[in-house]
């Protein structure tokens, strides 16, 4: 079984600071890490490999520094890593990103399953996975919380949709996006980390994808959406009225507020 995992390098969201004057993030304030949801995708892929045999290929698109994220993927059990890095790929929105990733997957040729994290913590769109599936013409299931069965030609997953869990059978090849609830990613061992440091990483430029894609759909010029303005959100003004007194008085005042707002009769 050949499993492809799509990974992205993102700023460390818990540490990143924002330049509130310029309304953008200060990239120097935090390191770059593997998108946390992608760790769950990698873990899911490695678990399938451990159970059924096969191999895992990690693909990322980004600047050359994203190599670090692919080495992280190798340390966590991926067998092969491919980095799509080219100025022509830069500034891509989700459509152009998905188009480029799909072209790379077509170049790889045979695969059984593609696993993505539910979303990235920087873009928060959750769009790239389903868009890749559409470009490749394969079925997908999003928000997968459990892989229940897998065989050489199908996979059964449990996905959380609106009011229900859906038990969905997908014919392979297929794509799934997984939530944080699917597993607890293991930490890479020191040995694997060292091995990953020396492992080769394949880099593909736009020329490498020329025969299977149209460069007009790459990068910024191939992106139909444009960010025209970025700013920090302002929270609406609230009354900010303090309630004081003994605990009993405070409780009575809260009841009064609930009455005024017709929560209590």
């Amino acid at each position, binding site marked *: 079984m050949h499993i492809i995992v799509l990974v992205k390098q993102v*700023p460390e969201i818990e540490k*990143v600071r*924002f330049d509130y004057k310029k309304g*953008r*993030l200060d990239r120097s304030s935090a390191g770059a890490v593997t998108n946390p949801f992608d760790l769950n995708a990698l873990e899911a892929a490695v678990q399938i490999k451990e159970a059924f045999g096969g191999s895992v290929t990690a693909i990322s698109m980004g600047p050359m520094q994203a190599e670090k994220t692919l080495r992280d993927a190798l340390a966590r059990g991926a067998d092969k890593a491919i980095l799509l890095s080219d100025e022509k790929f830069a500034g891509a*929105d*989700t*459509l152009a990103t*998905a*188009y480029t990733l799909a072209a790379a997957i077509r170049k790889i040729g045979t695969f059984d399953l593609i696993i993505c994290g539910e979303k990235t*913590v*920087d*873009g*928060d769109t*959750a*769009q790239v996975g*389903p*868009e890749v*599936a*559409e470009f490749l013409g394969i*079925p*997908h*299931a*999003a928000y997968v919380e459990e892989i229940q069965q897998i065989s050489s030609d199908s996979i059964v997953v449990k996905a*959380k*949709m*609106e*009011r229900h*869990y*859906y*038990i*969905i059978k997908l*014919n392979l090849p*297929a794509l799934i996006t997984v939530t944080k*609830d699917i597993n607890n990613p293991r930490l890479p061992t020191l040995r694997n980390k060292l091995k990953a440091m020396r492992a080769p990483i394949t880099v593909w430029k736009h020329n490498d994808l020329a025969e299977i894609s149209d460069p007009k759909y790459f990068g910024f010029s191939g992106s*139909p*959406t*444009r*960010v*025209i303005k*970025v*700013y*920090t*959100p302002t*929270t*609406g003004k*609230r*009354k*900010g*009225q303090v309630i*004081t007194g003994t*605990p009993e008085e*405070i*409780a009575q005042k*809260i*009841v009064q*507020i609930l009455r005024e*707002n*017709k*929560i209590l009769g």
Partner: protein
Amino acid sequence: MPEKCGVLVFAEQEDGKIHNVTYELLGKGRELADRLRNNLCAVLLGYNLENEAKELIYYGADKVYLFDHPSLKEFDVIRYKYNIVNLVKEIQPRIFLIGATRIGRSLAPRIAAALKTGLTADCVDLDLDEEGNLVQIRPAFSGNIMAQIKTRTKPQMATVRYKIMKPVNRDPKRKGEIIRKEVGKLGETGIKVLDKLGAGEVNISEAEVIVSAGRGLRNPEDFKLIKEVADLLGGVVGSSRPLVDAGWIGKEHQVGFSGNIVKPKVYIALGISGSPQHLFGMRDSDIIIAVNKDPSAPIINVSDYYVIGDLYEILPQLICELKKIKKSEGA
């Protein structure tokens, strides 16, 4: 000449019931269509949905394109995409809105990729520029920044967050047209829904009262106190992320960017400091009441009413007062 369709709304249904986000999208879509002097259309897919199609008209749609077929009863992302893409090619809407529910966020990207058009995720506001182009406003970086986005291709597609837009009032006298569409012939899609299971009874995003606890809670058993208050108010228990991560309470109770976005009439935050990711999930509540020991906690700044104090002193009194009311009502 007006286009065949100004604004198209995807009418989401599950088990034959229209998801409320649809009515919100029709409300916003009505406003946008009127400003564009164009019409508002909806597309509804499923089985036996004639009455639901009428509802969409009562809530503002001028035309409803109805794909009514047993094969569309359950959500099959490829079948839905296939029929919607055909419709979009035919009626060429300027703007196409889809609810940012999990179904919507799984479906919309496939449609956008098939049409090679831009898609903006999870919008919290929509506007038009001078040329009538859609301005899409959405949070990024886990809610830390907001971005305005425009789309160069048509349709301009966006998924829109639930509980942000306002529906128009239902008017059963409103007239509109229901257009039944031929369901496209499509073989196996490679997707089969084998089963559907209930996803727990707590539906916090629909709750009118939420009593929520954060790190001020000392141990997991004390959620009993929170639950007691919530029950007395006919509300639901909420939680900040750390307590969910610690396994004190299920994720279905989590309020915040990575949990549930809520918009109750009253949100009571007990011992919650108010991280950006938590505030993002509850800041649109009608009334926010906070109890916190720390006067510098960020939650205080977004509250309508706040108490600087220990939740363990206030809660027993509050439970006592609420029980008194219950008793007098019962008498």
